[in-house]
C-alpha cells in the first residue's frame, strides 16, 4: 500500500515547505521601476469594447426593433415570391394534367 504513505509524506512535505521564506526584495529598486511607469487609462480590449456596445438597456430595445424589421422584411419578401411563383406553379400543374375530374 504505497499510495497512502506517499500521500501522507506529500502532505508532510508541503506543510514543512509552507515555512519557507522568500528572499528579501529590493524595494527601492522596485519603487524606482514603478515610478518610471506612467499610470494611464487602460485601453479597453476588443472584447470589452464589443461587450460595452450591449451593456445599456437601449441595446435591448434596438435588438427587438431590428428583429421586428427583419421579420417584416422576410414576411413581405416571401409573400412577393409566392405571388411571383404562383402563376408558374399553376401552369405547371395544368401541364401535368390539372385537377382530376
Amino acid at each position, binding site marked *: 500500500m504505497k499510495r497512502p504513505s506517499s500521500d501522507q509524506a506529500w502532505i508532510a512535505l*508541503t506543510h*514543512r*515547505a509552507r515555512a519557507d521564506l522568500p528572499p528579501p526584495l529590493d524595494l*527601492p529598486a522596485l*519603487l524606482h521601476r*514603478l515610478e518610471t511607469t506612467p499610470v494611464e487609462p487602460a485601453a479597453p480590449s476588443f472584447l470589452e469594447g464589443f461587450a460595452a456596445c450591449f451593456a445599456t438597456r437601449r441595446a435591448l430595445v434596438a435588438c427587438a426593433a431590428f428583429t421586428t424589421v427583419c421579420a417584416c422584411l422576410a414576411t413581405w419578401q416571401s409573400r412577393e415570391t409566392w405571388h411571383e411563383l404562383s402563376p408558374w406553379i399553376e401552369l405547371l400543374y395544368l401541364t401535368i394534367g390539372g385537377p382530376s375530374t
Partner: protein
Amino acid sequence: MAALLLSSRTTKDPDEDHRVVALAQQGNRASLETVVARHHPEVSRLLWRFTRRPADHADLVQEVFLRVVRHLPAWQPDQPFLHWLRRITVNVGRDFCRREATRRRWLDQPDDTTAEAIAPGADPAAHAAAAEAKAILAELAPDDRTLLTLHYLEGWDFAQIGELLGWSRPVTKLRAFRARRRLRTLLAEKNLP
C-alpha cells in the same frame, strides 16, 4: 523609506486600502508606494511558491506591480483591492508556469537551481522541503501546477483558487480531481518516502 517600511508592517485594513488605492488611481505616487510597501510581502511570498530562483522571483514581483500600475485605472472601487491584487498575482504565477513548461519542453534542460542561496534567517529544513515540493509540482501541466501549488503550499481551498483563476465551480472540481490524480501517479513514480 522608514515610513514605507512602517506601513508595510501595519495590519491590512480594507477601508484604508480602499482609500489609498483610490488616491493612487488618481495618480498620487506616494499612495502607490504605500500600496506597494503594504502588499509586497504577500505578493512576494505567493510568487515564491512558484519559482526557486531569486532572480525570477524578483522579476515576477515586479511584473505584478507593473500590471497593477498599468491596470489601476480599470480597478473598480466596489471590488476589494486585495482580491484584485491576488488575482493579478496568481495570473502572473500561472503565466510563469506556462513559460517554464514551454522552456522545459523545447530546451529539455533541468532547472538550474544548484546556485540557489538560502536567504539569511530561513529555515533550512523548510527550504529543502519547498525545493523538493516545487521540483515535483514543476513536472505537472501549468494549470495543474498552479492549482496544486496554491492548494498545498498556500493552503487555499480549490473553490477560492478557481474563483481567482476565473473557473466555474464544476470546472475547478474536475481540474482538481485530475490534477491530484496526476500528482499521485507522479508521487508513486518518485516513490516519495
